[in-house]
């Protein structure tokens, strides 16, 4: 063989359904259920972004000098960068000077020492969203960090977790309590200048969760963070860092919602996962940011960078159910650095009305015998655009590496589109990359069969869509699999006339 390098260029497959089942496109228009606004007085920074704003945020959180410098370095890098345009989405670019970069409920100015001191209005917000923060009412076995705009409101079960040596707290607190851990890992997976949004986040990130699982510890409960955008004209820039030390295990879930507003709001998060030797991290997302109304007005711009590094024998599993946001730009990725590391990506992305999603993953195989699995299920309804974009790269040392990708699209109605952009780069001859893709529709005949058996069309569509997503839902923690199914149902309401 003359060359050890085999590269397959990106192939593009675009399917646009036309004609026949125009009827299905009609919508009834149901309400987004998390769209309320909480009336709290907030300290909101005036719009605009410059070095002073970065310093203000850092000072507000009483950060050490190194972190302030770290932010400024990111900010300077960001100023030199261009907003990426390669994604298959069209939107009006945010005016970064018109956004406010810090907003926190006034009641949070003096940190409440316990839940009793937290503004009841805030607690009610989470209750309304189905996330009670009082431990006795909380979901058994799930610890929650509740982030409201730029601050963490409460973190439950902290003491119980501490007994196991697990650290679960707002990252803003961890900076003070565990500075050495933060300094050691922050930005090691997603560097400050990784990309435009990651740089912006690094400069102005507000709050998020920090998790550390000590060596050999199996985290005794599910950890979860619930992100809520409330204030108008603000962006949310949370930062999550999870470090699973050697041989440990953690399952983490994040959920997100925002009020219904006519203007678009920016959410640019960074999530970094570090799975040290033999550790396992299971990261699940149920993303239900406000998607905009049925005319495509308003909604969240969800521009998120999520990446994991898996060391020797480590395993990282991303599961995401994406139903919200007006525009999604998100590629939870795995760098399989150590030998035998395993990366998984299970995704359901549903778009309805005028939503656009460009989402997928990157699996970077560096170590020998690394393995990755990608199962992506895209569902398009209404006039939405749903794209899968995935990169599988087998580096020159990735002897015996394997990838399996399955990418399925389901189209509902005749106005939506599904696209698949797989990129495969294989630089080791023994590496095996498999890619399968299918496209199907919910047909009139299927709907009629259901109706003839007494099942109404909404129930029928939700059954068909749930069946389509089964492989992904079974990866979610059980309590959330049920939630995810319900969420799809709500998001699909009105997609069938």
């Amino acid at each position, binding site marked *: 063989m003359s060359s050890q390098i085999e590269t397959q260029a990106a192939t593009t497959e675009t399917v646009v359904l036309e004609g026949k089942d125009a009827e299905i496109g009609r919508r009834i228009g149901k309400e987004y259920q998390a769209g309320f606004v909480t009336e709290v007085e907030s300290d909101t920074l005036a719009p605009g972004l410059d070095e002073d704003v970065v310093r203000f945020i850092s000072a507000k959180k009483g950060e050490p000098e190194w972190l302030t410098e770290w932010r400024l370095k990111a900010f300077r890098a960001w100023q030199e960068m261009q907003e990426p345009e390669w994604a298959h989405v069209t939107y009006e670019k945010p005016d970064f000077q018109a956004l406010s970069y810090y907003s926190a409920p006034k009641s949070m100015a003096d940190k409440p020492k316990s839940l009793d001191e937290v503004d009841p209005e805030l607690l009610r917000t989470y209750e309304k969203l189905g996330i009670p923060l009082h431990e006795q009412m909380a979901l058994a076995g799930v610890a929650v960090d509740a982030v409201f705009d730029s601050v963490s409101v409460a973190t439950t079960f902290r003491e119980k977790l501490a007994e196991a040596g697990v650290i679960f707290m707002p990252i803003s607190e961890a900076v003070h309590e565990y500075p050495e851990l933060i300094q050691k890992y922050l930005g090691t997976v997603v560097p400050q200048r990784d990309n435009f949004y990651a740089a912006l986040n690094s400069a102005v990130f507000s709050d998020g969760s920090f998790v550390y699982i000590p060596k050999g510890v199996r985290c005794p409960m599910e950890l979860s963070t619930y992100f809520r955008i409330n204030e108008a004209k603000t962006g949310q820039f949370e930062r999550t860092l999870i470090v699973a030390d050697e041989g440990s295990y953690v399952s983490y879930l994040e959920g997100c919602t925002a009020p219904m507003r006519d203007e678009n709001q920016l959410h640019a998060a960074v999530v970094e996962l570090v799975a040290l030797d033999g550790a396992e991290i299971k990261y699940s997302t149920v993303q239900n940011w406000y998607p905009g109304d049925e005319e495509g007005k308003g909604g969240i711009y969800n521009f998120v960078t999520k990446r994991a590094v898996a060391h020797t024998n480590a395993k990282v599993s991303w599961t995401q159910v994406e139903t919200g946001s007006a525009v999604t730009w998100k590629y939870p990725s795995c760098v399989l650095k150590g030998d035998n590391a395993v990366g998984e990506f299970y995704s359901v992305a549903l778009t309805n009305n005028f939503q656009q999603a460009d989402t997928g993953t990157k699996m970077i195989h560096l170590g020998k015998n690394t393995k990755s699995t990608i199962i992506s299920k895209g569902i398009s309804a209404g006039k939405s655009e749903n794209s899968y974009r995935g990169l599988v790269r087998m580096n020159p040392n990735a002897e015996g590496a394997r990838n399996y990708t399955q990418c399925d699209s389901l189209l509902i109605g005749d106005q939506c589109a599904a696209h698949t952009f797989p990129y495969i780069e294989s630089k080791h001859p023994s590496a095996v990359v498999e890619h399968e893709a299918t496209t199907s529709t919910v047909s009139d005949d299927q709907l009629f069969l*259901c109706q003839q*058996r007494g099942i109404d069309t909404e129930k029928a569509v939700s059954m068909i869509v749930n069946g389509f997503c089964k492989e992904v839902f079974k990866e979610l923690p059980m309590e959330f699999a049920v939630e995810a199914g319900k969420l799809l149902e709500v998001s699909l309401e009105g997609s069938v006339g």
Partner: protein
Amino acid sequence: MISIQNLHASVEDKAILKGLNLEVKAGEVHAIMGPNGAGKSTLGNVLAGREGYEVTGGSATLNGTDILELDPEERARLGLFLAFQYPVEIPGVSNLEFLKASVDAVREQQGKEALDSVQFLKLAREKCKAVNLDQSFLKRGVNEGFSGGEKKRNELMQMMLLEPSLCILDETDSGLDIDALQVVAEGVNAMRDANRSFIVVTHYQRLLDYIVPDYVHVLANGKIVKSGGKELALELEEKGYGWLEDAATAE
């Protein structure tokens, strides 16, 4: 049971049914025969409310309820069942889940309590056995990868579970070998009772050897052109449909 009067219907603006009259009383089995293109399948689809079949005149009442304005699922919940000629596949949705949703919807309409999962599973297994399908078919996707005969038996199983008052069998015999035909016919015969009626749509007399009708009607050019007892089917077998079609066109 069902009373159809002067029913007119068209598909893509083409008139298919042109004044069809039919009275089916409780407990009766009526066979509808006729040449290809006479409107036999249209009748079932119109009564079931399939999209694309437009009623342009006439009426149809099921147990006193005018059904033509109702959604398909409402008609189904009132006890109208259409066994499809070509049952469609729904990949990913298990047969059991589908059957449960269906039975739940129908029972709710009838004011009956929903069956819990255990009760339902027991019932479904029973019916599965009755139509000679392996239990594994309950776990498989609806009709997914089923053979022609298995699909028809699956339809029959649904019929048994839903216990409809009016069953319309649309060319149930097409694509069935003689053994499968017997299984289906036996199932149908077992369901015959004084409160249930059947409209059996078929092109061939063969099915009627197994499901013996009380009445046979010939549908040609969108109308019933001749009615009689079960012996009419034999006559048609012998003479074909030509003589009746000519008469229908001549009108």
